[in-house]
């Protein structure tokens, strides 16, 4: 009797987890299958008939292809700026023991969520306009940097705090200048944190629509998040065959970045720190 019950509860648990898994897996499956389907559909089904024609048509859309490159420039540029600036700032803020640091960052994080949000778009546009930054990559990168920096600093400071000071002290006594110390000892040890922040920044910018939409004019500078709308009909409904194919292309760089970083550096900390 109790064995029967146990089997039953095991079965129920398995079914439950399978359903949960399926719930999250289905959209990804659709993203993998739909681009190769000749018929536009929202159902997850084996492509019938199988075709590569969707991709041909997407590749033929030079505006959309150029947009992928633009996204890469914007996301990559912001990633590099935010990661570098946040690392140095987090390091300085942590080691200099700035008073009221916590209050300062929480305040900044609060404000920064406004910067990339809808409410601040008008002043930001006016500001960018006054600085001559409208319709430039630099303008978009700077707005994103401003918006993402506080959170990035916040994340990185935890990594800095976790770093025993004796590494830096040892480097200083060994004769390293402050810059040599940061370059040779601090930055490599913070690399896992920098990777986290870098990828996080990249993903944020990669998927962002509003800021580039407001700040950019020329179609040749638009990123993919905007260009995907070129696969919509006049009436504003997506052409499922093409949007799915483009969405798949759009997803690849993020995946590639993650896999590359994971393979090259790994999201782990170096062993051997004894305290």
């Amino acid at each position, binding site marked *: 009797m109790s064995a029967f019950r146990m089997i039953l509860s095991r079965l129920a648990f398995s079914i439950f987890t399978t359903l949960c898994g399926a719930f999250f897996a289905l959209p990804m499956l659709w993203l993998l299958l739909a681009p190769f389907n000749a018929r536009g559909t929202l159902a997850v089904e084996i492509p019938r008939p199988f075709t590569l024609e969707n991709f041909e048509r997407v590749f033929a859309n030079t505006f959309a292809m150029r947009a992928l490159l633009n996204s890469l420039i914007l996301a990559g540029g912001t990633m590099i700026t935010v990661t570098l600036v946040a690392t140095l700032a987090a390091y300085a803020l942590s080691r200099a023991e700035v008073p009221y640091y916590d209050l300062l960052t929480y305040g900044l994080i609060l404000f920064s969520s406004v910067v990339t949000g809808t409410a601040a778009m008008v002043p930001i546009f006016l500001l960018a306009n006054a600085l001559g930054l409208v319709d430039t990559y630099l303008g978009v990168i700077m707005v994103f940097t401003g918006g993402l920096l506080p959170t990035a600093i916040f994340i990185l400071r935890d990594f800095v705090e976790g770093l*025993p000071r*004796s*590494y830096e*002290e*040892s*480097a*200083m*006594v*060994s*004769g*390293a*200048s402050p810059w*040599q110390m940061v370059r*040779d*000892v601090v930055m*490599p*040890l913070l*690399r896992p944190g920098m990777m986290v922040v870098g990828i996080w920044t990249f993903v944020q910018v990669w998927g962002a629509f509003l800021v580039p939409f407001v700040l950019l004019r020329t179609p040749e500078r638009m990123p993919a998040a905007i260009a995907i709308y070129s696969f919509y009909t006049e009436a504003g409904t997506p052409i499922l065959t093409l949007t799915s194919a483009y969405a798949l292309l759009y997803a690849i760089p993020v995946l590639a970045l993650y896999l590359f970083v994971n393979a090259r550096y790994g999201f782990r900390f*170096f*062993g*051997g*720190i*004894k*305290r």
Partner: protein
Amino acid sequence: MARIRLEELRKTFGPVVAVDDLTLSIEDGEFFALLGPSGCGKTTTLRLVAGLERPTHGRIFIGEREVTDLPPQARDVAMVFQDYALYPHMTVMENIGYPLRVRRYPRAEIERRVREVAEVLQIADLLDRRPGQLSGGQQQRAAVARALVYQPQAFLFDEPLSNLDAKLRLEARSFLKHLQKSLGITTIYVTHDQAEAMALADRIGVMDRGRLLQVGTPLEIYRRPRNTFVATFIGSPPMNLIRCRFHSAEAVLALEDGQAIALGERGEALRRAFRDGEPLWLGVRPEHLSLAEGPGPTHLSARVYAVEPLGVETLVTVQINNERIALRLSMDEPPVLREQVWVRVPMERALFFRENGELAL
């Protein structure tokens, strides 16, 4: 290679006085041990010399140069941290070579020097590993190698052996002593282990609560501790302190339970140093005490409290009144537990401390 001079050095952290008006001169090529209990300010003193802390007051000289306001980079000292602080992302080779790299030595020269030092320290076959893949003893040698690779003005060691097991520690100790003597580089060695300080140092400075209590050679400090703190900090087991009262007329010391010890030849000196009836501490090292057959003018009656055979000798603790006294005896038939025994106190080797702890005689 240089003298190190500290003048009225003081360091406070808020209300905490970590180092209190420390004046000290360490000779060129000397191996100097800073010894004291936890929290007495040893590490802070070392960090002041290295430039990692800024003194609240006072001056520091390395060689003829005043370095008080110089950053660590400009002081040309090498420090071995308690946790070694080997950079986990660099190989042992890169770790040891780092001080040369920041000094912009050519790559080939760095490699040659690192190999040379690594040979001496017997870690030449570990150069390609990361610190995380080394044992504690190997890490320690790598950290020492990183200090040795450039010939600094001084070595600063902060309890470098405290992470090692007992056997490795003895080995490393002899090794460090040998190395320091052959290189002749001025060394400050911080430790809370009195045996380590005694074994390694040319001179020892004993610290307590930020103050330097006594500076001297290991034997000086062992034989004539300046106060009861130093007396009980040095030696294992430490010096016995017996509370007595001086009776001038009879020239005896009276214990609290009424037993008396004749002062003999030292009575005259004590008369000059102490008032009649003044309380004092009688200090005797455990190895100077012995057991006697029966009563005598300098014998005390005691009861055996514990017997600990250590191989070469036996550690016997006896109880007189409520005080415990340790004896180091080299005898084949030690007394048995709770037995009544006679302890002979050799007055010619005894020290006399005032009630406040200062050495009087």
